[in-house]
């Protein structure tokens, strides 16, 4: 039995007259680095938003299966519930808590799934203090993991693009996810940062056992990282396969030629 983490079937998402996702079916195996590519406006971010409960598709099913084998349906659930099931994400235009420090950003992720405990928080009891210590340790660990230890006390808004991406990854990882959704993590980063980012993503999967779902326009990065990929165009899946298969697929080349030659050339 193959171990599927995300199972998306016949999902259609509309905004008024605009169809963002059109009968999309795809799946991701546990532990896989899966990529979704496609020209601008293809519906990639919409797919992510549907997978995380931010958008509610009108048709189709999305099933998420946890490590414990329990399967839940994503559609109809609130985004925070989905996050609590073990789905973490980053955003295309990075969204941090910009007035807080790097450390606090990640810590918010680390403690968010620990229940609320207002009374504990008000009284600052021993249990709360223990929790707090654990979150601090976890935060430090993750900052080290993504290479932001030196900037722990920097205000998030003043981080560079590359650092913001890493901060978002650390914050997502802090929630102890089973799958991490990355929406164009390499956008706005320089070539050397891209290499580091690719290594980081691989380490997330290898060391933490977190599956990766990746949206990326940088084909070099996608081709070197992804084990399998889906190509979206006009809201529909037009191709699927290993990087080699997709690269050779005439439909894909056509789709990209239709949009920007630059990207087509990079395939």
């Amino acid at each position: 039995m193959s171990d599927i983490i995300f199972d998306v079937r016949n999902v259609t998402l509309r905004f008024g007259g605009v169809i963002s996702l059109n009968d999309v079916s795809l799946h991701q195996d546990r532990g896989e680095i899966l990529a979704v590519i496609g020209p601008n406006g293809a519906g990639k971010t919409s797919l992510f938003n549907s997978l995380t409960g931010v958008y509610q598709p009108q048709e189709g099913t999305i099933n998420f299966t946890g490590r414990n084998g329990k399967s839940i349906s994503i559609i109809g659930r609130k985004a925070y519930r989905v996050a609590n099931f073990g789905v973490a994400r980053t955003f295309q235009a990075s969204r941090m808590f910009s007035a807080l420090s790097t450390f606090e950003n990640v810590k918010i992720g680390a403690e968010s799934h620990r229940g609320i405990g207002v009374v504990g928080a008000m009284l600052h009891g021993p249990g709360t203090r223990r929790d707090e210590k654990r979150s601090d340790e976890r935060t430090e660990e993750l900052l080290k993991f993504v290479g932001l230890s030196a900037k722990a006390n920097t205000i998030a808004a003043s981080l560079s693009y590359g650092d913001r991406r890493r901060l978002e990854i650390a914050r997502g990882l802090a929630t102890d996810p089973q799958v991490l959704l990355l929406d164009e993590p390499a956008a706005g980063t320089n070539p050397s940062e891209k290499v580091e980012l690719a290594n980081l993503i691989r380490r997330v999967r290898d060391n933490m056992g977190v599956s990766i779902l990746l949206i990326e326009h940088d084909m070099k990065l996608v081709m070197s990282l992804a084990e399998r990929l889906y190509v979206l165009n006009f809201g529909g899946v037009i191709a699927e396969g290993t990087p080699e298969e997709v690269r050779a697929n005439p439909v894909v080349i056509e789709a990209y030629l239709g949009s920007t030659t630059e990207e087509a050339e990079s395939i």
Partner: protein
Amino acid sequence: MTELLAKPPLRRLLITIAVVAVIELMTGPPGSNTAPTAGFKGSFAEHASFFGLFRTQRWVLFLFLALVGWGIVMVWMTNGPRVRVTLNKWLVVPRKFTSTRPVRWGVLGALLVVAVLLPHIINSPFWQAAMVEQIAVYVLLAIGLNVVVGFAGLLDLGYVAFYLIGAYTAAWVTGALPLPPLFNHALNPFWAIPIAIALVMITGILLGAPTLRLRGDYLAIVTLGFGEIVTIFANNLYGITDGSLGSKLIPHPSIHLGPLKYVWGLKPVPYYYLALGFVVLFLIVFSLLEHSRVGRAWTAIREDEVAAESVGINPLKYKVMAFAIGAASAGFAGVLTASQSNFIFPSSFTLTFSINILVLVILGGMGSIAGVVLGAILIQTVTEWLNNGQHWGYQPSDLYIYLGALLIVMMIFRPAGLIPSKRRKREILLSEADHENSHMDEVLLGDDT
């Protein structure tokens, strides 16, 4: 003409004169509907003392003030930034000193000692009463509203409802309402405190759960409506609240706990200590909360709700929590007021009141506990001083004009308040820096962990 107006110095002069003219109106004599121009005329034409030197018409005096103000503005415009930089340089060492832990605790301790000794330093009965009714009560309300507006970023314009419910709970529990108390057994108001706090928190949850998913400005209007409705009910449900007659004969609180026996009476000072105890309690609880997971979650929601949800924070739950927790201190304040004064009237719990409390929070600094306490003490002390005796023809109803103007002025010139909360200040500056990158340096000064 327009070219001339475009010149900054002249523009500033005209703006200064306009502002001063408004102040002239605000401080001038009142008019009436039979003499609608009397106030305007009097504000400019009435005679006033020119700093004790000679008597002249008000407009001369204010024109002089406008010119002085303009001069100050001009000097500040050219030298302000430099002065600020120098000042910051000079302040680096003292700031470092005051931000160390022992110093902070020392300052807090000293303030507490002053607060405890205050009734012995101030002997005037007027001020002793004011310290309870006008200052302590308002501090309690301000720190509670600060949880909602400052921490969670929710504009609640119906906060007075919780104060009202607290006060009526005191009346109900002690058997002063037509509605019979629990088990038909009247308790003394001391027991009303926990009951009132529990009740307002439950009300907060019930009101908050459906409405707090609304966007900020909708929420403001809905809470405003709720505040009105609660007052309307209190005013009209004669069978439960005695309606507009209000509730009289609410007894003073007392404690009989084993060897501990104490009866609060007519004198204000014992109430002052009761209030002070609760103020300290709420301050500790709220500031622990601010720096806890809950406080961070509130900040996260305030800054970016979508991102907060993406890490598993349930925004509605935290907002409702802020609503309920913020209500607690208003509930206590209600009991305090009711049991000290022995009577309550629905007409004293109006929208005006909610806005008064909002002004205290805004002046002090949204999200800054120290700021909010300072804001409340400052405004309430000045108000009481103005109300106590004759001051330049000031009338109590003028207060609201000043408070409204203060809200606008604060939003234009110092949106983060007198003692800004670091997080809030950064948020505001960041939002503005999106616009104009020049602010960035200021924003990124200083770490706070």
